[in-house]
Each structure stands twice: as C-alpha cells, then as structure tokens.
C-alpha cells in the first residue's frame, strides 16, 4: 500500500483516477484503519484528503451549512450554528463511537462507508443533505440517500470522492432528531435507528416530513409512507402510531449478532415514534 496526502482536490482526483489498482480514501480513518488492520481492505493506494485546502471548513451557504469532508464529529458538535439548525444531524454524528473516535470520524466517511447502521446517514437523509462529489469529470451534487447502495458499497465512480456535504436551509418551525438503539449506553453500532425531520405551518400542522430508518435493511431506508402519516397532522397519537407502524412495515431486517428480525421491527417503530416527538418539540410544538 502507498500513502498519498494531496493538497488539492484536483491532485487527489488525479491520483485516484490514475491508480491502476484499488484505491481508498482516508478521512477520519475510523473505518478504514480497522479494515486495514483486519485485512478486510487491502488498497494499493490510500489517499488522505485531510491536507486539501478547505476540507475542514464549515461555511454558511444559502441559509444552510456546507460541511467539509474532514470535519470531525467533535468539531461539528462545537459549531453552534449547525447545532441550532440541524440538531438531529449533529446528535447523530456525535453518537458514532467514543470521544476518541469523535475526534476523527466524519460525516462524509460515515456516508461513504455505506453501512446500513451508519448513525449520521438517516439523519442526513431526513435533513435532505446534498453531498458534493469531485472526480475526473469535475464537480457534481448528489442527494446523500443515493450514495450508499449496499453494505460497504457506494455509488461513487472511480476517481470520485465526497468533498463536502450541504445541510440545506430549513423553514421556520422545523427541526429534526435522531435516535438509535444499542444494548449499552455507548460504543455500539446501531441495532435500529431512526431520523426524522419535519416542519410545521403557522397552525402547528405538519406540512413537511422526512423519515429515514437504519439497520433494518441493506441500506438506510427512506420511509415515505411514514412521512405521509405525519403530514397534515398535529402529530397526535394516532398519527404517531401510524407513522411507527409504517416504519415497522417498511423494515426488512435480518437476524444477526446484534438483534433479531422481530426485535428490529418492533423497536424501529418505538424509536421512530420517540424521535418524531422530539423533532416535533424542537420544531416549536407545545411539549
């Protein structure tokens, strides 16, 4: 394996495109280093993107924020603006691993690693985040939900990598939240997770909602049926229950060392309902 630390996007894409063998991106390293050690990844070239100019930046953009691909969970959690705008995304990213892992792990890495249990991904999808991708053919933007395609596999073409993620502006009276279930209080991979983002009109009626659930299918699922249950309601118990049931119905989990099918289908509804209530309260609903 060779290691390269390019200082510009163009240099990085050139290196990636020119590599005849396997190449891999190094951002926070909390996934790739584990895979290297275990022999699960054996790239010929590892491209460390953290020396690229601006890659650590968090910048305001059209009422939202553009988050550089090397911004760690710890750094994002210290950004009052992002935290106020998209608290669910920030809390999701901050749930990944330990304090130590937070010092390195990135949203872009979590996305591209394409785990169905990735914590920040349901929250990003619910937030309608847009990934900016650079590659040999230049720059393109892509909804984050289109990036993971299967466990461990993403849709990026050879030579491409995510350089930043845009968390868009959101209307007034809107917010988001994320919850996951783990057997301990920390240090686990989500057994089930749910992210909800929603907006309320002046009368407190939900007029926009996005629901994404994790660890219950091969990729994070966007559950439009669940979102529909909320839209047009004041998130009364019946709406919330219907929304939970829709999540449960959409889930197609497997039984594995972390949980059973039955457990995941049950608990995804529990979490989705809890998280919708949190988002609702954050959006300004009377609690």
């Amino acid at each position: 394996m060779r290691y390269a630390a390019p200082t510009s996007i163009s240099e990085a894409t050139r290196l990636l495109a020119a590599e005849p063998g396997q190449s891999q991106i190094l951002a926070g390293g909390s996934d790739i280093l584990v895979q290297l050690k275990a022999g699960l990844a054996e790239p010929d070239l590892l491209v460390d993107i953290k020396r690229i100019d601006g890659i650590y930046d968090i910048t305001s953009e059209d009422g939202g924020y553009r988050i550089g691909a090397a911004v760690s969970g710890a750094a994002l959690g210290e950004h009052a603006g992002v935290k106020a705008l998209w608290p669910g995304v920030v809390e999701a990213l901050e749930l990944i691993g330990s304090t130590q892992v937070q010092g390195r792990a990135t949203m872009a890495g979590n996305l591209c690693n394409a785990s169905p249990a990735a914590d920040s991904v349901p929250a990003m999808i619910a937030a309608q985040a847009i990934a900016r991708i650079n590659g040999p053919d230049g720059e393109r933007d892509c909804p984050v939900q289109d990036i993971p395609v299967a466990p461990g596999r993403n849709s990026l073409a050879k030579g491409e990598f995510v350089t930043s993620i845009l968390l868009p502006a959101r209307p007034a009276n809107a917010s988001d939240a994320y919850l996951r279930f783990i057997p301990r209080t920390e240090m686990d991979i989500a057994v089930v997770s749910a992210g909800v983002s929603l907006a309320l009109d002046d009368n407190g009626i939900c007029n926009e909602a996005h629901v994404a659930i994790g660890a219950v299918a091969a990729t994070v699922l966007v559950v439009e049926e669940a979102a529909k249950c909320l839209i047009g309601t004041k998130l009364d118990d019946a709406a919330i229950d219907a929304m939970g049931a829709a999540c449960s119905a959409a889930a197609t989990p497997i039984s594995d060392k972390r949980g059973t099918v039955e457990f995941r289908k049950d608990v995804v509804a529990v979490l989705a309902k809890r998280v919708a209530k949190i988002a609702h309260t954050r959006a300004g609903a009377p609690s």
Partner: protein
Amino acid sequence: MSNIHVTTTLNGDQVEYLCEPQETLLDVMRDRLDMTGAKEGCGSGDCGACSVTMNGRLVCSCLVLAAEAEGQEVETIEGMADGETLHPLQQKFLDHAALQCGICTPGFLVAAKALLAKNPDPTETEVRYWLAGNLCRCTGYDKIINAVMDAAAEMRGA
C-alpha cells in the same frame, strides 16, 4: 515497500521517524520511538488504551496512521507530568486507588485531561460518557470516576 519520512511534535519535542504506510501512530510510538505508555488493547478504537491528543483533539493512536502525524502536535501520557510533579489527575488516580492492573490507566488519564481542558466542571454523568470509550475491566469504573471528579475540583481551585 517504501518508508515515509515524518516530522512531528511529540510532547513538545520535534521528532522524526521513518514509517511504513500502514503503520499506525501507536505502532511507531511503541516500536520505533520507545514510547510504550500508550497501549494497544484492541487496535480498532474500541478500548481507548492508546489515547493521545493530536492538535488538542483526543484520538485513538491506533486509528491514526503514523504518516498522518506529519506536522501535527501529539501529546501522550509521557508528557503529562511536569518533571517530577505529577499532574493533578495522576495524583488523584493514586489517591483514589483508581487503578488495579494499570493497563488502561494511561488512556484514562489522557482522556480525562482532554475532558477537563474542555469542561473543567463536568457532572459525574458527563465524566462517565466522555470516558465510555476507555475500557477498564478491573475497577468497575467507580474509583476512576471519583478520581476525575476530585481532580476537576482541585484544578478549579474548589
């Protein structure tokens, strides 16, 4: 296999080393620089025994490539005491019997120091969550938490 030349700052001292691309910062500290204070308990970021700070950020040195340390500032357990004077956290760990076997102790101390730099007055719950990535199998954590809380109070001058 071509080695990479790295210049970094370790506990305030500028050091240079050659490393293989896949070697971690932990590997280099332990195997090339004779700094064995940071321990490898898992090699996957799950135990915290290899905790160091890089540019002030708490990280697992097993999850950092040695090549990434180029131009960075790394602080380890070896840099924690000021000469013969122990850091208040080190002293409180002794006073509270916060270690049994001691293998996790350097990681806990480095992590706790990073916590108190960010939050000088943490609640017990905040200490427990901050340190959740540092595994201890001997103590049940009780005396470790007490030591950190007491050190925080002393450092605040309380």
